[in-house]
């Protein structure tokens, strides 16, 4: 009834050319409040949604001559298409010693700056007994030409130390579900950090090859091999402590996302 009345009224007004120029057309039939709420909802639903994402890029057991360990490399984010809150975490737990060898958590604000790259900034914390550090982080993460997934990060610790890492992954489809993933990571430090047994310059290089089977895209068990070599003075620290700066591990794990 109200609608009909309104319609009649509007018909009269429109005939007199009295329709408000800037008022959305539907408001005259259904009221500005109801329409504003519906418009708000539509905008949100049409490109404005936020979403949560979680991925274990690597969640694996590694076995080498020197030790057995468990490792996780986790990414999670929440947000829209441009701005997101990222959580990254990487940790290695020595099964032989029953202790974490390293454990880092990063909380980053991430912004899409180009079609394929995000600029990220935030903080990272290393959990290490008596030797924990907090860092300011800046990172560039994305997809480089030729389908290389890259993540380059720089860290400035609360003790003033500058370090960095660069990571790249590539995917080779052997079949639609069997995927071979080469991966490389390079670490670097601006200065000597004896307490961390790290020397200035390039500190380590890692190269891995993982073969996964995507039962569905979101769930893929894998096996692989990873070679790690410490470099420069960092290697010297390890040798001095009686260790081997080079190691090769067999890995088996799960890559999942949702």
């Amino acid at each position: 009834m109200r609608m009909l009345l309104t319609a009649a009224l509007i018909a009269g007004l429109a005939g007199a050319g009295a329709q408000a120029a800037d008022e959305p057309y539907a408001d005259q039939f259904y009221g500005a409040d109801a329409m504003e709420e519906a418009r708000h909802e539509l905008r949100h639903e049409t490109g404005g949604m936020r979403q949560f994402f979680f991925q274990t890029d690597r969640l694996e057991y590694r076995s080498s001559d020197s030790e057995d360990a468990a490792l996780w490399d986790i990414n999670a984010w929440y947000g829209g298409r441009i701005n997101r809150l990222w959580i990254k975490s990487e940790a290695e737990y020595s099964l032989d010693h029953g202790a974490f060898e390293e454990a880092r958590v990063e909380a980053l604000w991430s912004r899409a700056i180009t079609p394929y790259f995000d600029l990220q900034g935030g903080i990272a914390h290393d959990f290490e007994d008596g030797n924990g550090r907090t860092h300011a982080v800046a990172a560039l993460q994305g997809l480089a030409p030729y389908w290389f997934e890259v993540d380059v990060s720089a860290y400035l610790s609360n003790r003033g130390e500058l370090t960095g890492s660069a990571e790249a992954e590539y995917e080779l489809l052997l079949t639609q579900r069997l995927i071979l993933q080469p991966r490389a990571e390079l670490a670097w430090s601006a200065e000597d950090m004896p307490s961390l047994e790290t020397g200035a310059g390039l500190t380590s290089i890692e190269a891995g090859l993982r073969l996964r089977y995507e039962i569905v895209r979101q769930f893929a068990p894998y096996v692989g091999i990873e070679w790690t070599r410490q470099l420069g003075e960092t290697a010297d620290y390890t040798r001095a402590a009686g260790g081997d700066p080079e190691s090769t591990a067999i890995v088996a794990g799960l890559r999942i996302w949702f």
Partner: protein
Amino acid sequence: MRSTVWLRRAAEKADPSPLSFSDCQAQPAANDEMIRMFSRRTFLQTAAASGSVLAATSLVPAWARSGPAANLSGLQPLSGTEFDLTVGRAELAIDGRTGPAVTVNGQVPAPLLRWREGDEITLRVHNTLDADTSIHWHGILLPNEMDGVPGVTFPGIRPGETFTYRFPLRQAGTYWYHSHSGLQEQLGHYGPIIIEPRGTDPVRYDREYVIVLSDYTFEGPHRVFQRLMASSDTYNFQQRTVPDFFREASRNGFMATLRDRLMWGQMRMSPTDISDATAATMDYLINGHGPGDNWTGLFEPGERVRLRFINASAMTFFNVRIPGLPMTVVQADGLNVQPVETDEFQIGVAETYDVVIQPRDDRAYTLMCETNDRSGYVRGTLAPRMGMTAPVPPLRERPTLTMRDMGMDHGSMPGMAHGAASAEQPAASGHAGHGNMDHSAHGQGHAGMAGMDHSGHGAAPAAPAGHAGHDMSGNDMQRHDHPQGPGVAGVAMQPVSRLDEPGAGLEDVPHRALTYAQLRSLDPNPDHRAPGREIEIHLTSNMERYMWSFDGVRFSEVVEPIQFVKGERLRLTMVNDTMMVHPIHLHGMFFDVVNGARHNMPRKHTINVKPGEKLSVDVTPEDVGDWAFHCHLLYHMHAGMFQVVSVRPGEHADPHAGHRMGHGAHQ
């Protein structure tokens, strides 16, 4: 209520041999099963007829004459001028598997609505869901406030509420209706509409069927959307592999293959991105039946059978053919076209095609509807008797994208585009005195083509239109004035007209395939004026981030609508900067497709814009209000490929200027 019960009961039927989608072999139809389904539906129709809504039995239109076979359509026809539609939930059974559905009057597809041109109809839509709903009358010309788009033309229908739609019918033909709320369309909230013409139907037929094509995902649409947003190739299991590389290398040479891979890799794009929601998650349906259910339509040999195809899918383009039977296309998007005989056509999401077939032999024919990425299919059967089947052809090899799809294939189609330019030239030159017409976009270099003879083109009387001729006349690059942030992965530098192409994968089939260039409206176009201005809109995306937009701006970020003026004649030119085909739909008015047809341009409510294509449509807005303009791929719309076209009354526009004027009034 009874129909809901039926849906549940149907769901319980155990299918001993569910058809796997990778299995392309014909499955013998289970005779007993068909008969049981048939009798259930007979029961149901009787039940429905005794209900509150009108049954169709009083009318004897051609479709009703199909007798028992009409029941097999699974569609409950409602006719008259008053309708009660109840939106609710039920379980949908596909090839023996059940999943949740949003239904209208307990059915998927929703009831077939039969209207009559000239009638004023009233539809009371009751929402029994716990979420808002809506019904949009796709392709129907009506007052803006009845269009049914929440947040644009009305607030939506809240849970427990009833909304009454009332509007006069100004047209005839095959249309459809669907929810414009959330992702309900993917869950079954769609149904067909047939509007009987007031006068004589120029299409002659003995029997008719509505063929509602659709897709359904057991994962649930929200999950599918989230997965695509997280990883856009989640459902693409037809990517190029390492063995593919070596196969191609041995065929085309190592270096050539490597160059090809590097070219695509450099752009970070995949030539296999034909579709982003594939058979890996979708089941495909004919009138709510999976390929194993084998929807069957009966015919008497020699009869002319009219098939009204409606693609009510959320995400799927189909290639439709009936091996052994040519099809004569008589209608596109509800409006009659000059008959075109063809063997296969690609139907984009939301498009409709009416075809007439005349099977003369006493045998079964397979109605084969293959997805455009060839990842899956649905088939039905047309046969003289129940229980008959014909072989189901295997899925063909999936097509891949080319440089042409990137809008970079400059000049590879010599001779193709010239007719196009000439086709629009007469209109343009005849209107030189019209003041504000912008000729700069079309007027260059076509003078010598005005008298070009089109007769040599045979079945396609004229080459496609658009700006191809313009693009080929010089080295001018396509302009891109829109924002190009993270949401725009690439732009088409040299887009071309592709109206004479049948769609990805149909370019080289060994039989005829329909193109837009072949379509001619049966009636002369109501408005012959040359466009007074041109608006260019770019279809933009970043597949990697699953971002879809117009002019680089998702709807959530849009600040103002596109402005049209009532009664004006304007040209809307669309440039597809993305690597996918998009079915673009404008509510409230028809697109007159500038395909070289002069005064018989096909008029469409939804037009497929191919990757790397630039095409034009002319529009005469007649109804004031805000109209949705969007890609009809549901998840693309959901991701932001949506805009509002605001039609203003306009003080200077003559509302009657373009309408029903005599032929050549402006020549």
